[in-house]
């Protein structure tokens, strides 16, 4: 027996050890990968983010370095907390809170601790950083805007959130990502690919050299520079004209679909969303849910298009052969259908052909046309589907499928849509408002501008886009191949003549610009909001679409000015000036420019929030801006003229 005691113990010990090893190495263990190995310091190397140039080669967005203090919670060591907090200018409570938050995200991955240090703080901190185990400084490029315009086009970059990280493992806590505008739509092009260096650490957290001589390191790939189709001068001019108004302006080059300018008013200076103030400013913009500066009205604002939509009905009428350009239709200062009546501002008994119909924007003319389209086969259900199909071929009623980060479908109703409202019988008179672009029809400014492009091109359009050039890449076919409408080419001429007549003799004859043949169409759209659940009418929206010149058009434009009353009052002036600015490069109609700078609609926008009854449309007084504001705008205008020359 005695000889077996040690024998037995040795074997028992062997088995115990193997069991423990099994637990440590197989059950609990596993090879660290480099990313997860706390013996290896990961030094991320963020590449230059691609620059953004406008169509004339003017640099709009560049970079500036920024320094974030990052933390890996499980590696935080013992050090003089008070000194660290003092250097970072934070309190001990903030320190604990931030560390706790980082730990909750992940104890072993880096989280930003104090983002975007100032240069002075960075200089002081950098020398002492070695003392603070678990913390390091990450350099990354931050945007630097070389301009104050185009916030809605350019967008901004911001820290990724948990969802971004879950969706794309490329991102890590603290990374910056395009959040809006082209920064978001061209994120992958602009950002490049970040690189990484693996540095072997020792147990005192000191670097002792590259791991395996840098065999596994990844070299960063620079972000690509892009050129966008926006003309910075035109954009700046548009933004200036739209100050103290709300709405959207979209200008497109019909021959290419390139968006020349995309104004959303009100807007903001993109610089305020850079740096430490970013989140404060962003919250401020986000909280302003009345003016809503983050809402890109030129592509997200869905409005009833009003009279410009009559152009569409004219085209469909011609294509469906229910009307000819010459046929005259009598207006009875309105249009009677059943026992209801739609008013028109034509004098009683006026007989309009298509050109004068467009010129005078005659409601009766287009109500008749619309009804004929729907009743062509005797079945309004069939008729409205045909009508809807034609309208949709202009890119209305659906996303344009372009490279803008946000968008809206708008609405072109069809029978299926009306099934909910009129399940059984359906007559053309039910939807007569569509004849004049109200009722169920809704479009965004960009869709309307695109429709004008299709008219200017006599039957086709290019998907409007904002990208002009990426180094080493060709644009996708979607942007370079024309899309044809279902309307035959010959039907466009009478409509264009009508639009031309609008400027010659019609609703926009005071907006003429010397030497430029402009074709346009005004729109004045009734609109309502709910105030304390009472449907209340507000001053009409001022809407205008145009293209110019008549032959070989260079620019097509759609302007929406909220509560600007009639079409040529605000929107028409903006459109004419922008056209002149784009084609001539200078302004001859200084009177219109002056008028727009001088007048504000802020009092209109304030009305629904006063809580008191108010007047609209003709019964209102137009607001003149204060002296100081006028002076500021004039200053801006002068600046703009000097830079563009």
């Amino acid at each position: 027996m005695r000889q077996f005691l040690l024998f037995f113990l040795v074997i028992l010990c062997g088995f115990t050890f193997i069991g423990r090893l099994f637990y440590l190495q197989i059950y609990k263990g596993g090879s660290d990968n480099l990313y997860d190995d706390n013996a290896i310091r990961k030094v991320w190397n963020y590449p230059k983010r691609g620059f953004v140039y406008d169509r004339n080669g003017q640099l709009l967005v560049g970079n500036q370095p920024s320094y974030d203090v990052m933390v890996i919670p499980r590696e935080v060591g013992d050090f003089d907390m008070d000194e660290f907090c003092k250097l970072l200018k934070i309190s001990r409570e903030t320190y604990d809170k931030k560390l706790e938050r980082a730990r909750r995200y992940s104890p072993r991955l880096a989280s930003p601790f104090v983002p975007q240090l100032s240069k002075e703080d960075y200089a002081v901190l950098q020398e002492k950083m070695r003392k603070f185990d678990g913390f390091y400084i990450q350099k990354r490029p931050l945007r630097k805007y070389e301009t104050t315009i185009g916030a809605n086009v350019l967008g901004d970059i911001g820290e990724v959130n948990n969802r971004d990280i879950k969706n794309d493992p490329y991102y890590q806590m603290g990374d910056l990502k395009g959040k809006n505008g082209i920064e978001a739509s061209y994120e992958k092009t602009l950002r490049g690919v970040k690189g990484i260096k693996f540095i072997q650490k020792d147990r005192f957290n000191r670097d002792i050299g590259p791991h395996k001589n840098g065999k596994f390191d990844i070299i960063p790939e620079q972000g690509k520079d892009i050129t966008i189709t926006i003309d910075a001068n035109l954009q700046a001019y548009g933004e200036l004209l739209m100050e103290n108004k709300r709405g959207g302006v979209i200008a497109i080059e019909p021959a290419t679909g390139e968006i020349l300018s995309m104004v959303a008013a009100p807007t903001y200076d993109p610089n305020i969303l850079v740096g430490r103030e970013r989140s404060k400013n962003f919250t401020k913009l986000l909280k302003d849910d009345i003016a809503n500066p983050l809402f890109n009205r030129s592509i997200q604002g869905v409005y009833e298009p009003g009279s410009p939509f009559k152009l569409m009905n004219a085209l469909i009428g011609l294509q469906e052969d229910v009307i000819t350009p010459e046929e005259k239709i009598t207006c009875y200062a309105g249009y009677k259908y059943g026992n209801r009546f739609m008013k028109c501002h034509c004098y009683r008994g006026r007989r309009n052909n298509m050109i004068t119909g467009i010129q005078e924007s005659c409601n009766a003319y287009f109500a008749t046309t619309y009804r004929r389209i729907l009743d062509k086969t005797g079945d309004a259900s069939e008729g409205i589907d045909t009508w809807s199909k034609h309208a949709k071929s202009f890119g209305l009623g659906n996303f344009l499928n372009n490279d803008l980060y946000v968008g809206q479908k708008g609405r072109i109703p069809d029978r299926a849509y009306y099934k909910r409202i009129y399940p059984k019988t359906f007559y053309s008179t039910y939807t007569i408002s569509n004849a004049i672009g109200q009722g169920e029809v809704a479009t965004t400014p960009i869709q309307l501008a695109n429709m004008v492009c299709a008219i200017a091109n006599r039957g086709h359009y290019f998907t409007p886009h904002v990208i002009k050039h990426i180094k080493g890449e060709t644009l996708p076919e979607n942007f370079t191949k024309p899309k044809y409408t279902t309307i035959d080419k010959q039907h466009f001429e009478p409509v264009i003549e009508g639009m031309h007549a609008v400027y010659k003799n019609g609703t926009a004859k005071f907006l003429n610009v010397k030497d430029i043949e402009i074709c346009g169409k005004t729109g004045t759209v009734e609109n309502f909001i709910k105030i304390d659940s009472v449907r209340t009418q507000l001053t009409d929206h001022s809407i205008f679409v145009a293209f110019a010149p008549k032959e070989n058009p260079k620019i097509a434009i759609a302007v929406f000015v909220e509560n600007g009353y009639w079409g040529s009052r605000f929107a028409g002036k903006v459109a004419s000036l922008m056209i002149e600015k784009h084609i001539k490069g200078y302004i001859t109609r200084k009177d219109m420019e002056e008028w727009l700078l001088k007048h504000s609609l802020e009092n209109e926008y304030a009305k629904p929030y006063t809580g008191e009854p108010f007047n609209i449309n003709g019964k209102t007084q137009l607001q003149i801006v204060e002296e100081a504001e006028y002076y500021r705008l004039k200053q801006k205008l002068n600046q703009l003229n000097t830079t563009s020359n």
Partner: protein
Amino acid sequence: MVRETNRYFKFDWVTIILFLLLVAFGWLNILSASHTGTEIDYFDFSQPFAKQIIFIFLTLILIILLLALDAKFYERFSSVFYILSMLSLVGLFIFGKNVNGATSWYAIGSFTIQPSEFAKAATALAVAKYISDLNTDIKTLKDQLRTFMIILIPALLVLLQNDTGSTVVYGAFFFVLYREGLPKIYLIIGFLVVLLSILALKFGAISTTIAAILAVILLHFFRKRKYPILQSIFIITVSAALSFGVQFFYESILKPHQQDRISLWLGLEKDPEKLEEMKRTFAYNLNESEKAISSGGFTGKGFLEGTRTTGKFVPEQHTDYIFSTVGEEWGFLGTTLVVILFVLLILRILHLAELQKSQFSRAYGYGVAAIIFMHFMINIGMVMGLIPTIGIPLPMFSYGGSGLWAFTILLFIFIKLDSNRINEW
């Protein structure tokens, strides 16, 4: 002629090969744990891996020397070795050099030597010699006490030099004595003392005492031959005294760092913040060593590829914590291989010891096996966190000349003795 050819084959080659495998594999891991750059300069003799090559080379000469000497020489001069060895330990109090709090080194220039490593071999010889003496009867109390003296002298000397690890190793001789006829009661008492100590530390002296009372009462009911009441009371009293004694010892005599080690091992510390604190301070080695072993997984990261080893995350990795290098770079396959090699070596020695015809050789063989076993058990157990931290090297594996030579001497004396057993009748 037949005798001449046998001369080399009568050495137990299985043991020798196991020994060489461990030394060689040990060296590879020392290289991993101690090299500093990507370029390895094998002739940079300031580096442990290069020094170890010299130590190994000298070891080979030492082996030839040990095997060339006559087997009788070791038995005859065992008392001399013992006395010299004890003198060298005593000398440390005067000439010793303090390294990491233990005064266990002689320094001659840059060369240091640790006599306590050699003292184990000397003691093994002395114990074997004493109990194989015809006049010695280990069953008598007198001879038991004398044998204990032989063991306790070096054990106390190294303890006074603050080398707790080496002291614990002397417990190995219990196995020798037990094999050679030490009464069973020592085994039972030893076992109960260890058990009671752990229970007293873990659950407190009062609970342990109550448990002891219950155990005695239960035994009283189930045994046919009843213990006298007086004896039962005596056992209970001793148990209680021991429990409270251990608790007192733990709380009042042990140094704070020793308390902390035991407290961590038995999981006495419940406060998570204090635990984290422990992991950062004295348990840092253990924590890093466990992490390094775990990170190796099944196959390991590969030779010279261990990132924690390269980063020197485990302090003392080339000496006491060498096994964590095996864990990280060679994975479960490597660690299991090392465990199996050690188990085979120890079992082989035990097997050979049982074959010996002289009691001296057998007792000595038992000593060798038991000493290697103690080192193996304590070192690997410690590195994996199974037992509290006690700093002793892994035989044949850890860096260090004294250790390697001491184990060479220990083992090859036995191989020589074993080779001689056919000549003994």
